[in-house]
């Protein structure tokens, strides 16, 4: 299989790999780069477990070709904390019992971050809309919605 070079930043770090032409960003991140915070749930764009942020926009990495990400800035939940200091979303999910099995959590947090990056003070309806592409089979969503709203409140307090 023909291999192509791909170069991008992942959570601020330069990454360069040769990948098979046609391989998804999901596979490249998990199997080549070793960022297993990105989860493979359906690999057909329906569950949101693989969601990452590419150049500021939420993307399903299972439907994104790695070779189309040359020069991009990619963010994943695996790079969100600074050492032991959690991002406000991570803290809110942890303290608000917004995880159970944890499999949807990294993609859910990415969807939430993409929302807050664009809209720091979202309404409940904004939050529901923002995570509407992410399936959680454990929590029933309510603790997740509350955690995202709590993180938004924490952000506004720290900004004030």
């Amino acid at each position, binding site marked *: 299989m023909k291999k192509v070079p791909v170069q991008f930043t992942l959570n601020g770090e330069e990454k360069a790999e040769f990948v098979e032409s046609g391989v998804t960003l999901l596979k490249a991140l998990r199997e080549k780069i070793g960022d297993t*915070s990105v989860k493979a749930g359906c690999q057909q764009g329906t569950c949101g477990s693989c969601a990452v942020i590419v150049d500021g926009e939420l993307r399903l990495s299972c439907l994104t070709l790695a070779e189309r990400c040359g020069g991009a800035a990619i963010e994943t939940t695996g790079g969100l904390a600074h050492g032991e200091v959690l991002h406000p979303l991570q803290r809110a999910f942890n303290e608000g019992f917004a995880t159970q099995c944890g499999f949807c959590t990294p993609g859910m947090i990415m969807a939430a971050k993409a929302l807050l990056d664009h809209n720091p003070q979202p309404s409940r309806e904004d939050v529901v809309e923002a995570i509407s592409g992410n399936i959680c089979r454990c929590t029933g969503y309510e603790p997740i919605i509350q955690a995202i709203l709590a993180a938004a409140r924490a952000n506004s307090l720290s900004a004030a």
Partner: protein
Amino acid sequence: MELRKEYFADERKDDLKEIGQPRLRADALGHVTGTTTFFADRNLPGLLHLKMVRSPHHHARIRSIDLSEAGRHPGVVRILTADDVPHNVYTILTLIQVGPEDETVLATDKVRWKGEAIVAILADSERAAHEAAQKVKVDYEVLPAVLSIDEALAPGAPVVNEYHGQNFYRYDSGECRKVRFGDVEAGFAGADHILEQTYGSGPIEHAPTETTGCIVMPEGSGRFTCYTNTQAMFFTLDNTSIILQMDGAKLHMVGGTVGGGFGGKVDVTVEPIAILGAKLTGRPVSFIYSREEEMQISSPRAAEKLVIKDGVMKDGRIVARYVKAYIDAGAYSRHSPYGAQKSAAHFPGPYTVENVWVDSYCVYTNRTPSSAMRGFGVTIGDFALEVQMDKLARLVGMDPLEFRFVNAYRDGDMKAHRQPTEGAALIECMQEASRAAQWPVAEKYLQMSSARREG
């Protein structure tokens, strides 16, 4: 959340250090940082990918299997067939003396459901395994299929599973699990009203976000490390040991982190064949269900058919309850003989009825084998029972909540399966529900207690 501490106040302690205190989940920090290690979060050098060739028919005889073209496909390392499996016919609950063994790991002469595993391809890449699987040629003689409980039990129906010989599981108690309590015919004879209704449900898939799978590493010690998302570590260990005729000490099962289970990951469908592949190739093997397989192949909650006939008095007392329960196991037993047994024991629900008759059948059909799912054998029964309770209340002109107070079980009542009731709290739950939902009931029901029969 509001804690109502006045109920059972003499049974509670409020000076405990851990119980009653909020504590963060031990695993949540890993979840929110993406560092929790799920079974698939491993890159092993030389990893082989396993792809299963599955039956496209509900019921068919296999005339022949031609592997020649698939075997020549670039990247294919090994193809496993039934001949490679040391103990190919198994049943999970043999561990608790449920028999006979009735399911093939890889099909031999027949397939009994659409999706049944026939041949396993091991290849260097997922793509090569997938492509080679398309090149396996299976010659089928399609057989008539039964796709519902009624079809399965109709006279002259095709036999789904020859290991049973008839389309239901034969218990030591006969063709079904039976509960006999009081005199149900006398109860009906003395009843003011009789209501018989039939309830039905379809199979329900758990749809966990993480699909079923495992990764197996053959170790230099001769052991096999199996990273798995099973919910049933010891069922998996013991059944793998039986199927592979391998000493359990050679099997190192690593698990405990499950990306959603809900009962859907208690069957033993991936580990034995992946470990066999690792043994025969000497290479690590990954066998992970696609989303399509998770939805179509992994076992769902059983479809059920429930016939409930009740005799009720004008004052609301249920005096006789007769139930025929049918649990659709699909083509193989898996956990369903146990599910049907639970179903029998669960009736007549959380109500005290003096005359009860239950027949609960585990039925075989040419459908995806069903298995565990949150309260299997009980949940659908509760749906049917509570709909029935509402209908009975309407029949006698009572408020549906008050009707349940009249019939609620209380401590000391003998249940139909001969376990005395203890620790009941149904009345207290309904009293609280009445307040919370602002659904008023007569004062006498608010004075009732689960601890006393009076009132």
